[in-house]
């Protein structure tokens, strides 16, 4: 009996060691290494892996492409997270309101994009952004309205954000909606008797009560946004405005496999992982403190 829990945890432990701990350790090790080329770089002894200290890190932090990618993703995240969570909360509240019709159908329809791979979603929207085949451009043309280029400049951010919002709203809506459903009906009864409008009930009772799930969805949305890779990569063949280093993860991929500099890529990857961890723990601590303060009141 004493060994039983460890036996049950053995498969997970082995997999964790092989596919999480070891790769992370290896990446950190590589991030402190570099290749030294002697002579013309020919022959087996000419390329030697040596200790690099913090060189890869200082290179990464002063790399304009990486910093630029971080800023681009920041701008993109400032659009995606509020719009997606705002819509998810709005739809969840609407689903939860009295006398709403077609709720099961609309709930399923809004959740549907979750089932569609990010690559396919980006591909579908990519075609809808292409003037040659898009119904939007067809309508704009018939109406004689200007036709903006959605795959360039500022609109490109909107185009990319739209794909993420489309794909993520339904899932977050379901998370918020299930926690709305968990609120007992008695909680509203008194407010209703006092003549509170549905809007007041939503703002004063429902939203504060689902705050924990809003925190959770916010947290996961931020992490997902920082890691954006699939959608810009998929749009790349359709436009020249998405560079191979558009997001930080694309830059890491490009350095590792495009340039073949795994050492620089490892240092960048480590920085991104540390930034994600710091952000996550900072955020969770702040959220916890907030909850404790509210509980103390």
């Amino acid at each position: 009996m004493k060994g039983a829990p460890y036996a049950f945890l053995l498969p997970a432990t082995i997999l964790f060691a092989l596919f999480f701990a070891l790769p992370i350790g290896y990446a950190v090790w590589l991030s402190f290494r570099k290749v030294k080329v002697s002579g013309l770089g020919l022959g087996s002894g000419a390329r030697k892996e040596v200790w690099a200290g913090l060189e890869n890190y200082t290179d990464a932090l002063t790399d304009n492409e990486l910093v630029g990618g971080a800023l681009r993703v920041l701008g993109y995240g400032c659009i995606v997270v509020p719009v997606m969570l705002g819509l998810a909360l709005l739809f969840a509240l609407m689903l939860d309101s009295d006398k709403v019709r077609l709720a099961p159908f609309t709930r399923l329809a809004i959740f549907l994009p979750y089932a569609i791979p990010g690559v396919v979603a980006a591909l579908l929207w990519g075609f809808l952004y292409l003037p040659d085949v898009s119904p939007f451009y067809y309508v704009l043309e018939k109406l004689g309205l200007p036709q903006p280029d959605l795959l360039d400049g500022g609109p490109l951010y909107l185009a990319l954000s739209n794909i993420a919002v489309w794909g993520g709203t339904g899932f977050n809506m379901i998370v918020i909606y299930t926690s709305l459903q968990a609120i007992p009906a008695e909680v509203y009864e008194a407010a209703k008797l006092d003549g509170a409008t549905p809007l007041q009930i939503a703002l004063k009772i429902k939203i504060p009560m689902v705050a924990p799930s809003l925190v959770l969805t916010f947290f996961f949305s931020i992490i997902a946004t920082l890691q954006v890779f699939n959608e810009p990569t998929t749009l790349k063949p359709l436009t020249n405005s998405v560079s191979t280093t558009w997001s930080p993860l694309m830059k890491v991929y490009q350095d590792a496999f495009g340039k073949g500099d795994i050492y620089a890529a490892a240092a960048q990857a480590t920085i991104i992982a540390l930034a994600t961890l710091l952000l996550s723990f900072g955020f969770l601590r702040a959220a916890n403190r907030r909850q404790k303060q509210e509980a103390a009141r």
Partner: protein
Amino acid sequence: MSSLAVGKADTAAGATPGTAQSRPPLRSRIALIPTVTLLLGAIYCLLPVAWVVIAATKSGSELFSTFTFLPGTGFADNFSDLSAYRDGVYWQWMGNSALYAGLGALLSTCVSAFSGYALAIYRFRGRETMFNVLLAGVLMPPVILAIPQYLLLAKADLTDSYLAVLLPQILSPYGVYLSRIYAAAAVPGDVVEAGRMDGASEWRIFTRVALPMMVPGMVTVFLFQFVAIWNNFLLPYIMLSDDEKFPITLGLFTLLEQGANTPALYTLVITGAFLAVIPLVALFLVVQRFWSLDLLSGAVKS
């Protein structure tokens, strides 16, 4: 489900009296703003799907010349063109995705069930540490894992193989987390204790007593993991170079890369995207009843 029940009771009440005078005015029977808002949301979410369904029926020339929401006449041709593309490699991709997602999710669910059960039922040294370390895996950006995983698998000569895509996706920190929550809620401690009194082995208690109680939660874990693996792009993108082993996401991406400069290939990409959407959407419609999303809010609360 409460709002749904209210809606039904409402219609029943409105229908029984039957006379026009006894009915309240339309606006008070249907909440107009919520219904319209949700319908707009549904239209937004269905629009690209509707477009791809229609665009897949168009021949190459129709795609560029006719209004995009009118169906075309070319679906049969598109379908056979796609099936003929590189000796049917498209269907190979579909099969690969089914294999990666099906087998991967099954193994992942088993590992999650073992771990979740152990973490929920037993008290042992290092329990919380193990749980937290496993959970930290959720926060790891996939590319940070995938690149060293690739380099290490290359040393073992395992890259560009089915195993390279399958193995790294078996352990799912999120699956372990959900399993722990579910096992803690569904398996009462005294049932396990009673099993021990009867002299059953720990393994027997798990398989005969606990596992049946955990089935609904494990179905959810399986579905989450199935969707996650089916939708994964980055890992196969890094691991694979032989397109016979590609999953559908990577296959479609390479098709798009080739097709972007040759509009003649657009119809192939569009038809491929349409067919790729079908399996998961069908899965969703069939299993949505077994998909216990309450687990998510349970996860939220704790």
